[in-house]
């Protein structure tokens, strides 16, 4: 199935498509993320937003407040003290919202899994995650692939069936 801009228009400037496809295309082209860097992975996220591996060409802009954001990229180790605050931020975001878990610390505790008495072993113990990006820290290219997988997931969403 061709995406919206790949189809050829016989009659100038009239496009016929499904509402679902139109809404999904609009949502995936402008995923605004909440600027939320916790630890070392945050530096790689900042490097992805800088000019070498530009994040802005995919439509991803950092927003300061959760009320205006579509996605959170949890980058870095989640501690017990911080987990309650992340839950509160997640509840403040409006629907539809997406979570990308970046790095092994937020996937499953990372290198601190064994003796970390203050580390939460994976953010999915508190909030539901859509895409996991592995690495310690993941390269900027890996984060871009995570974003593309998220876009793939949004493209296949349906208005009728409920998501999480």
């Amino acid at each position, binding site marked *: 199935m061709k995406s919206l801009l790949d189809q050829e228009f016989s009659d100038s400037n009239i496009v016929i498509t499904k509402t679902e496809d139109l809404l999904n295309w609009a949502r995936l082209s402008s995923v605004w993320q909440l600027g939320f860097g916790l630890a070392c992975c945050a530096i790689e996220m900042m490097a992805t937003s800088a000019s070498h591996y530009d994040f802005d060409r995919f439509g991803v802009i950092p927003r300061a407040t959760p009320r205006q954001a579509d996605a959170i990229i949890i980058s870095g180790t989640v501690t*017990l*003290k911080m*987990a*309650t605050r992340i839950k509160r931020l997640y509840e403040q975001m409006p629907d539809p919202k997406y979570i990308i878990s970046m790095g092994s610390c937020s996937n499953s*505790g990372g290198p601190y*899994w*064994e003796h970390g*008495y*203050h580390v*939460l*072993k994976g953010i999915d*113990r*508190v909030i539901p995650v859509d895409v996991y990006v592995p690495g310690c820290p993941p390269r900027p290219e890996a984060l871009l692939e995570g974003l593309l997988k998220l876009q793939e997931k949004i493209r296949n969403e349906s208005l009728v069936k409920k998501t999480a």
Partner: protein
Amino acid sequence: MKTREEIFNVLKQEFPEDVFEILNQPMEPIIMVDPKAIHKVSFYLRDTEGLKFDSLMVLSGVDDANGEKTTDADGSQTINGGTLSVYYHLESLELGHKVTLKVSTPRDNPEVESVESVWRCADWHEREAYDMFGIKFLHHPDLRRILMPYDWDAGYPLRKDYKNPEFYQGMKIPY
């Protein structure tokens, strides 16, 4: 610039009951001091001409684990008796010499005088020693936990016989 032995001799003359002995270790000699008198000794070290220790580099708590170890029913250890120690590394930026002090307190009721009024740097270091080991610093202006959550009631994490709780506010802690 003075060597550590000279500094020890000066201190021993000034405070004969409070300064105990100098431990000669391979890497650096350490001066043992009474925990309730560390305050007076620190003021003297900071203000006297010829010593002038104006900078506290680091203050760290150590669990000596030299009490008697008993094994509980689930295989974990508990330590009774023994001591907890605090090490002070001081430096003089003017004169260029360094010294190390050590105090030891009993594990069941660890209490040390605070040196926060001598060097303001010790404020957060002492809060961290309290948080991790449970050492109480007398006359500290604001002694409360600094790294762990304020309502953490499962003990002092860096002690050798610390046991991890299972849940904290509904979140499962072990892997």
